């Protein structure tokens, strides 16, 4: 088991510093954006001549927090994608093919590690928006804020609901299928690149997820459909990996 864990450790050592730096940058950027939105004193019209403080989801929209998260997902994707490739020089594939575990097993560990990184990003983002909700509640007139404000915001906003879907099981399934599929596909990209092939599955998954992110609550059909699609792509990747593993040591690399 140690030899497997050492490979997991290898992937972590390759990128953990940069992943943590990205998370810190995300937290700093979003905090600044939210503070700026909060300072603007945004309001919403209740009646013709009356206004109230804007609900917290309006502040998230105004501060473009969902875009900061999307950008962080893309940056994390690129960071993890590159860590297993030989695009920046070096032929780490030569060593990966000589370890005590197969290269395919190493790719699986990398996929698992990448998925954990996406989960970590999600957890940090969820913690940040919950923190911002508390911040909002502490600085807004208590007449307009209740214990239910954040809860309601997470049902009204597609972005917030996508982060914490509460009781909507289909959205949870979609989120986790996305993390797993993107983790595996980003690891597979490096594997394909090392063997002189192209791996486009990761880009398809990322594009699908970003395009459909922030869907309004209650779209269970879409959620299950996306979950199925992500699972299907992951299944295909695993099949490719299994086939290669059965094929032995030689690879399909062509040309020098």
């Amino acid at each position, binding site marked *: 088991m*140690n030899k497997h864990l050492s490979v997991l450790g290898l992937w972590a*050592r390759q990128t953990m510093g940069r992943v943590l730096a990205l998370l810190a940058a995300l937290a700093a950027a979003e905090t600044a954006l939210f503070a700026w939105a909060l300072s603007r004193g945004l309001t919403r019209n209740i009646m013709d001549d009356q206004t109230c403080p804007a609900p917290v989801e309006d502040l998230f929209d105004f501060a473009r927090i969902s875009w900061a998260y999307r950008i962080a997902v893309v940056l994390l994707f690129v960071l993890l994608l590159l860590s297993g490739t030989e695009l920046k*020089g070096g032929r780490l594939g030569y060593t990966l093919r000589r370890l005590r575990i197969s290269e395919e097993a190493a790719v699986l560990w990398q996929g698992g590690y990448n998925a954990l990184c996406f989960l970590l990003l999600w957890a940090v983002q969820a913690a940040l928006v919950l923190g911002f909700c508390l911040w909002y509640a502490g600085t807004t007139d208590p007449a307009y804020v209740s214990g239910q404000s954040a809860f309601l915001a997470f049902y009204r906003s597609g972005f917030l609901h996508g982060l914490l879907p509460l009781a909507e099981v289909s959205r949870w399934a979609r989120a986790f299928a996305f993390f797993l599929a993107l983790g595996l596909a980003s690891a597979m990209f490096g594997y394909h690149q090392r063997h002189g092939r192209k791996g486009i599955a990761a880009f398809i998954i990322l594009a699908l997820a970003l395009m459909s992110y922030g869907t309004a609550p209650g779209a269970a059909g879409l959620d299950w459909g996306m979950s199925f699609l992500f699972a299907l792509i992951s299944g295909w990747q695993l099949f490719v990996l299994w086939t290669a593993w059965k094929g032995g040591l*030689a690879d399909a690399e062509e040309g020098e």
Partner: protein
Amino acid sequence: MIEVKNLSKSYGKKEALLDVDLALPQGEIVGLFGENGAGKTTLLKCVLGYLRHQGTVTLDGQPITRSNIQRLSFATCEHSFFPALSPAGHRDFYRMHFPRWREKRFQGLMDFFELPMDRAAGKLSTGQKNQLEVILALCQGADYILMDEPFAGNDVFNREDFYKVLLGILEPTETVLLSTHLLEEVEHFIGRAVLLRQGRIVGDVTTGALEDSGKTLMDYVKETYRYRSDRVRKALSELTGEEEDG
């Protein structure tokens, strides 16, 4: 012993290796020479199983698979280490995956070449990267150490140091197959020279046999390649003549 039989490899229509036969008994230091594109790198990669090929490569009669690949190590000028990992990180990782890891040798070579233990490998200078690459290949406990132009980018003194250190530390059971252009530099370091040309082995001689015949390695290479020593002079006179005409 590594035995290569009828090894052929082509990239599309281009034949990179054609019916190569080669035997590498344990304990030899073999130089693999040839012009650019002669097939040296391809041969090493085929031996390691990195490239699909025709023909057979065996290690003590067995095909090279995951079960015995660890008896071979590889040092390449392309570098096969992990750029984000420090030498110390490599040591910890390799110790786990290469059970015959040579700790004392690693420490000694790192000290000798004064490489920083905790800087990411990718941030080392080109010369230091080459040194680390070779050190890692030498410390994996492999019986056969394959090297592909490992000193490209290192200065002559550094290379000289390496040859001396190599000769001093290699055990009688360790075999080195060194692909390089630096004929004259490695002449006194190797025990046998294999010459490749256009994917074929055109020469295979021990340095002892060369000494007996009073030839240098360079003489042997030129003779084998039918090198025309007047080629440069002719070309220059033609060029000069053209200029004069012009």
